[in-house]
């Protein structure tokens, strides 16, 4: 296949972007590389449109929920504790029932807000003209997974992507890492907010101690990687350094008088950047050694210094260079591409815009064969783009993604979503894609599927698929065949 502007445009829009909308290939064909490079802007990736709470506002709503949950628990346990008889069945709605209802309502409101944000994010994906910036942002959100499988993280995951990830995806990696690890979503998801230094003032006073979850996953999943050369002792030392990294305390705890007030203020800690609140009262005192480097005692700064060093280690550059190549180009990426990305990373001190430009410049990125199978989210969003539509309601969107194996904001573990064909194109997953493609075909039945396929795939559309689509017995069937074609399932 000869290299043409239109072919490169189709590659740029499908492999690097979220898919092509009608007419987009023609627009981008004039300068596909320039179109991509222009999206690597210092301000980061665009955020979903709509009125959403900041994490400070969200924290208050979350604390209201916690207070309601505590009240409901007290009310439930109170009669039993007092040894009184159970309330009569025909009594008017009890205070306990009201408390339980209030708790359930505020929990539902929190989850619904996150669902609303997911819909806004899907709509951004379906309509954006900066598809590469969107894919790049989603890649980094996945590299720093805070998963809604845990309720506390589900409350903050929308804010997390908007506040911690998107603004930093074309900046320095160390800044992205700091923003991500400091955010309430991550601090709650990986249990950091509860970790207490055993020799801290608070640790000596009560039964509480270290939780090494975040420290381990930073090493293993966010920076140097499992083969990055650290030991269990490094994990524990890093966990000690991170004690005190926490979320802001609620208004209620800051109220109070006299000694209670001073104590509450001490427990509340000091608000810092990126939403991090540092609670000196639980911080493990002393200097720390992590991966052979010594860090003097120093409050929140100690953990920051370790994180910064980890962010800038060569193992981190190597690992993430490969992860980028796997995500964008091939499950087994060409070594030359990985090397080019690694050089760009180390040469720029982890400037992610420079790394993005290296990805765009590498000839291996433009091989015409589509080697990546789309994830369910990519499949659904690119289908909307091909049809020129956008998801209207969150419920069917969520249901489709659950069935295909990629529920909204809910990667199965801190490792994030997997990224190879073997993960996404299993027998049952393909049956579920076909289900969805049939429903989409029925909805788009008045459309010209050949034109739709041409608009979405351009010169990537092969003769065989074109013929199958053209010869379909109905327009609905033609759309389904297009959506299930190998060219559209891959990118």
């Amino acid at each position, binding site marked *: 296949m000869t290299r043409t502007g239109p072919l490169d445009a189709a590659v740029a829009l499908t492999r690097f972007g979220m898919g092509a909308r009608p007419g987009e290939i023609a627009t981008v064909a004039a300068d596909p590389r320039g179109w991509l490079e222009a999206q690597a802007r210092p301000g980061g990736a665009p955020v979903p449109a709509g009125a959403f709470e900041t994490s400070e506002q969200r924290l208050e709503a979350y604390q209201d929920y916690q207070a309601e949950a505590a009240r409901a628990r007290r009310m439930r346990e109170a009669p039993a504790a007092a040894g009184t008889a159970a309330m009569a069945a025909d009594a008017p709605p009890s205070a306990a029932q009201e408390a339980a209802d209030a708790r359930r309502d505020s929990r539902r409101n929190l989850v619904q807000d996150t669902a609303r944000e997911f819909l806004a994010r899907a709509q951004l994906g379906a309509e954006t003209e900066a598809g590469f910036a969107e894919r790049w942002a989603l890649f980094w959100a996945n590299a720093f997974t805070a998963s809604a499988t845990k309720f506390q993280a589900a409350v903050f995951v929308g804010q997390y992507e908007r506040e911690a990830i998107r603004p930093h995806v074309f900046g320095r990696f160390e800044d992205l890492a700091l923003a991500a690890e400091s955010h309430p979503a991550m601090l709650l998801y990986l249990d950091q907010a509860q970790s207490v230094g055993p020799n801290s003032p608070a640790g000596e006073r009560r*039964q509480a101690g270290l939780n*090494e979850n975040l420290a381990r996953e930073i090493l293993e999943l966010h920076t140097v990687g*499992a083969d990055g050369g650290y030991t269990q002792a490094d994990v524990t030392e890093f966990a000690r350094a991170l004690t005190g990294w926490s979320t802001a305390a609620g208004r209620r705890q800051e109220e109070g008088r006299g000694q209670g007030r001073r104590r509450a203020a001490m427990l509340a800690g000091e608000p810092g950047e990126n939403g991090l609140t540092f609670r000196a009262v639980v911080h493990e005192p002393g200097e720390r050694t992590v991966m052979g480097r010594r860090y003097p005692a120093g409050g929140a700064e100690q953990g920051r210094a370790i994180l910064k060093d980890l962010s800038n280690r060569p193992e981190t550059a190597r690992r993430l260079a490969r992860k980028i190549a796997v995500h964008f180009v091939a499950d087994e990426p060409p070594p030359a591409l990985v090397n080019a990305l690694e050089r760009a990373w180390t040469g720029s001190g982890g400037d992610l815009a420079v790394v993005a430009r290296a990805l765009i410049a590498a000839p291996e990125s433009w091989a015409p064969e589509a080697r990546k199978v789309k994830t369910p989210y990519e499949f659904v969003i690119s289908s909307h783009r091909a049809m020129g539509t956008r998801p209207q309601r969150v419920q069917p969107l969520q249901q489709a993604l659950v069935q295909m194996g990629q529920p909204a904001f809910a990667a199965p573990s801190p490792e994030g979503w997997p990224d190879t064909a073997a993960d996404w*194109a299993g027998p049952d997953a393909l049956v579920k894609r076909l289900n969805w493609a049939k429903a989409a075909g029925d909805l788009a039945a008045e459309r010209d599927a050949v034109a739709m396929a041409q608009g979405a795939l351009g010169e990537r559309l092969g003769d065989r698929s074109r013929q199958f689509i053209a010869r379909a017995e109905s327009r609905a069937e033609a759309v389904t065949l297009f959506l299930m074609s190998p060219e559209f399932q891959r990118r």
Partner: protein
Amino acid sequence: MTDLMMNRRLLLGGSMAGIGLAFAGQAGAQARGPRPKLVVVVARGAMDGLSVTVPYGDPNYAALRGGLAVEGALEMRDGFGLHPSLPGLKTMYDAGQLRFAPAAAIPVRVRSHFDAQDVLENGGEGLREQNDGWLNRALAAAGGGGGLKGLSVGAQTPLILRGAAETSSWAPGGQVKGEDRIAALLQDLYVDDPLLQGNLARGLETEAMAMAAGDGSTLRRNDVNGLGQAVARLMTGDNGADVIALSVDGWDTHARQNGQLQTRLTGLDQVIGGLHDGLGEQWANTVVVVATEFGRTARANGTQGTDHGTGSSLLVAGGALKPGGLIGDWPTLADNRLFEGRDLAPTIDVRAVFKGVLRDHLGVDRAALDSRVFPGSAAEAPTLDGLV
């Protein structure tokens, strides 16, 4: 069976010899007797073995665990008890259909979930040695020239069942029927894409079976027992799957683990109960293995949970199981016996148990187990006392 009936069958077989060849495979399978069924449950996230097969007879248990020590364990022999959320498994234990290794581990000492799950599933001796799963390799190596059918539950095929042997997968919620015109068209359209072609064909075949069994989209989301029964139905009949991989997530209990474990263990108990109920008579030919990537710290951490550890429980259940005692030794929780001063020390390699099950239940010979199914594992003998 009376002689008369036997003769009648022989007679019929003889008279239909000309057209009977198409059924030779099935007849062969019947002649071998009931097909062995194996279900491997991967508990992802590091299951806290000390809360599953609770060593309440160990003098250090209560002190190490503090508030996490399980109360009301269902008493077994040897100083162990099952977590109270496992009443179904307790019934199996009482019937001689449950055994366990109290301190099993993969061959590599790592505390990364993902590295450890890879090793648990790929059956390697070290990190990153195999790209396919041991259960898939076992399908090819099983006795009778293979022919055992593999199936995973869930939209994604887990590593343990990935590999050269073709397998299918299934999850509730399907609508497409295999005989649809569009399915045939796609088979044709995928002629140059063997991955999509093969996987869609197998997915549709399994879906058709599930539809026939009435499991289309009727299953409620939290009906774990129903899921177990639906899987069981996919395992019965001439075309049923023989080897199943099933994942149960959510075991990473770093904080407030008591409540979380109660939920997870109830689910585990119910899904195995569903398999038992759904398999009916086939339960007598079935073995269920539950394994996790590693255990958790012997001591409670500072947040009413536990961190990543080493040894954990490995469960083997099923009607095909022979009654017996502990698999492997109990290392005790004495301070000087803890691995690296913090974890339950493993006394048996998970591969030894897997090899015992594959040899005794699926008829995989020792040479294949040592070289192909678990490469480089010759030193790990299959558990010796005849598991099944």
